[in-house]
């Protein structure tokens, strides 16, 4: 049987999710025995238009060129997997959608803004092309990546764990930071996958894996208010790494700079 062909593409991002491959250690060499990696610039493979079985996509879309490129990637790929918050929800940089002042910022920063071709809003991959599987997390970890690859190698649908971080805390018998310290933790509405890292370190979860299944965001926002968080502070909790994920945007939007324009992203381009 021919080895499945894969590609790893980067859009607007920090390169951190690609490290889920590059940090695999010797498993990276084993992975290479099971699949053929055709495009992965950081690792040295360059064949941007190769036809592949699986394309992994890191990063969000923020320029017209990127829109063009993702359509090409989609056309060349059997199965498209987004890796990480940027690709899946727009990521931290999508915070710029909230104010809608992108043009002014750009003009203020760059001496020749005409060279900076950017979209009005930063958007996730799925807003432009069909995505077959979304892996959440900022960053995604190697376990998620390998599980997806294995599932596809064996022809089964990858399992998508959408439980809350809270449940992971209970499984690991971690002391609840909200109950014991009154820390405003996002664990009750955040998808697991990290192994409840933050609560295990005695700190609040900050939502880097995005919303869990049936996230009760409004209930949690009210709970934060009960912990005497002011409205802006509540908004900041929800509007961070996955600010454009609907469950977070809605809850955060209610509290975001009262009096300001509607923070929800429009869809028009420059």
């Amino acid at each position, binding site marked *: 049987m021919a080895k499945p062909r894969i590609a790893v593409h980067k859009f607007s991002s920090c390169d*951190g999710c690609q*490290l889920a491959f590059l940090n695999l*250690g010797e498993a990276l060499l084993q992975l290479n025995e099971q699949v053929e990696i055709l495009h992965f610039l*950081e*690792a*040295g*493979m360059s064949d941007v238009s190769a036809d592949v079985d699986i394309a992994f996509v890191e990063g969000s879309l923020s320029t017209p060129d990127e829109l063009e490129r993702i359509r090409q990637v989609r056309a060349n790929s059997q199965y498209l997997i987004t890796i990480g918050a940027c690709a899946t929800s727009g990521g931290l940089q999508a915070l710029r959608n909230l104010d809608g002042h992108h043009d*002014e910022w750009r003009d203020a*920063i760059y001496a020749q803004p005409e060279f900076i071709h950017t979209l009005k809003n930063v958007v996730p991959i799925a807003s432009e092309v069909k995505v077959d599987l979304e892996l959440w997390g900022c960053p995604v970890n190697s376990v998620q990546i390998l599980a997806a690859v294995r599932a596809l190698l064996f022809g089964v649908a990858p399992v998508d764990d959408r439980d809350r971080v809270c449940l992971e805390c209970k499984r690991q018998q971690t002391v609840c930071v909200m109950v014991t310290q009154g820390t405003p933790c996002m664990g009750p509405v955040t998808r697991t996958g990290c192994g409840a890292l933050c609560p295990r370190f005695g*700190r609040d979860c900050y939502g880097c894996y995005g919303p869990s299944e049936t996230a009760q965001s409004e209930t949690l926002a009210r709970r934060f208010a009960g912990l005497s968080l002011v409205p802006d502070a509540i908004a900041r909790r929800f509007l961070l790494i996955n600010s454009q994920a609907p469950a977070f945007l809605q809850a955060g939007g209610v509290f975001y700079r009262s009096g300001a324009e509607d923070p929800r992203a429009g869809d028009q381009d420059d």
Partner: protein
Amino acid sequence: MTSRRIRIDVPALTRVEGEGSLRLEIKGNKLVELGLSIFEPPRYFEKFLEGREAREVVDIVARICGICPVAYQISALNALESLSTQAVSPWVQRMRRAFYCGEWLQSHALHIHLLALPDYLGFDNAIAMAERHPEEVKRGLKLQGMGNALIRLFGGRSVHPVGARLGGFHHAPSAETVADLVEKLKGAQEDARNLTHFCASLPLPDDPQSFICVALHHPDHYAMESGEIHTSTGLVLNAAQFEQHFHEHHKPDSTALWSDLDGHPYLTGPLARLNINHAQLPDFLQARLQEIGFQLPSSNMFHSLIARALEIELALHEAIRLLDEYAYPDAPYNSLFLEPGIGFGMSEAPRGLLWHRYALDDQGLIQAARIVPPTSQNQARIEEDLHRSLSRFGLNHDEDALRLRAEQVIRNYDPCISCATHFLRLEKHET
């Protein structure tokens, strides 16, 4: 020969962090055009730091770069904590240095093996290289893994670790976990030594050139997580004085800002650090310099590879030294009160000087932020280097040879293009 005219386009540079391209045009024996363009879209980090709480900054700035999140976190903490009259505990200072060692180890090992070595051993990538040089590649992956383990010890995960906070760490690892890791780090020291010898045995091009070096210097040890700026031109500056001498401008056809030191390009990063601080290397590394016959200061940019290997040995040694005497602290942090004002801070990221400035208001919210990462500082130097290195290499070489040489020159700086495009020049939009 004089009629020769070639264009070399490298539409997407491989084995660099982030995406960029290179364009060369040679007419006769002259380089008429050279363009290193960066087309990463800007991510406007400083802008959305505005209005955030001081305590959120560490988790936000980490996301500028997946390869060096620790550097971003520590530079930010240095800047913000300078606004407090209280200091962090000696335990926190030592553990931050150990945490930072993990990042040097991880980033340098990744660079040497996955990004740089394929050039010297004649492969397109490390995976292909592993078929012929399995031991070398495995050794590199192991060292990279040690760095990641060290970051995880304090941060829970190696990319965007969650342990650092104002005043210290959220969590202190148990003494047993630390002792286990120290054993493993000790076991990797021989690998690191072999790596240095291996790098020094490669036929690196001999290409001396003159350039200004800029690095942090600390009176007590080889500077990493803190220090003052020293330059090879004799300047000594603290973080608050940075903006008096370092200036940025926007290069057309690029999304990055470039900086200069009083109008001149300069080098920051491992070779600059080693050139400025080599007298502080521990004895075993002084001996290593002798063994491999490495003269410092060095004016050969290709020595950056050896500099990284030496810094891997240093980072391992330092981490072991700091963790060997590990004691579980009374508290992993102290709550600091931050005064409103402007805080400046910096540290030596794996790729060089990383400078931050934050204005904090009386509500404890960030009013303005400015970040200058190493790659934007090295850009002018990279371009200057390309010009002279390619001419000196010989423009009559064929296209492939010229392209490879150009890529090698660029990789010496280990440019991180993602970092380079995530910052803003603040002065303008304050008006």
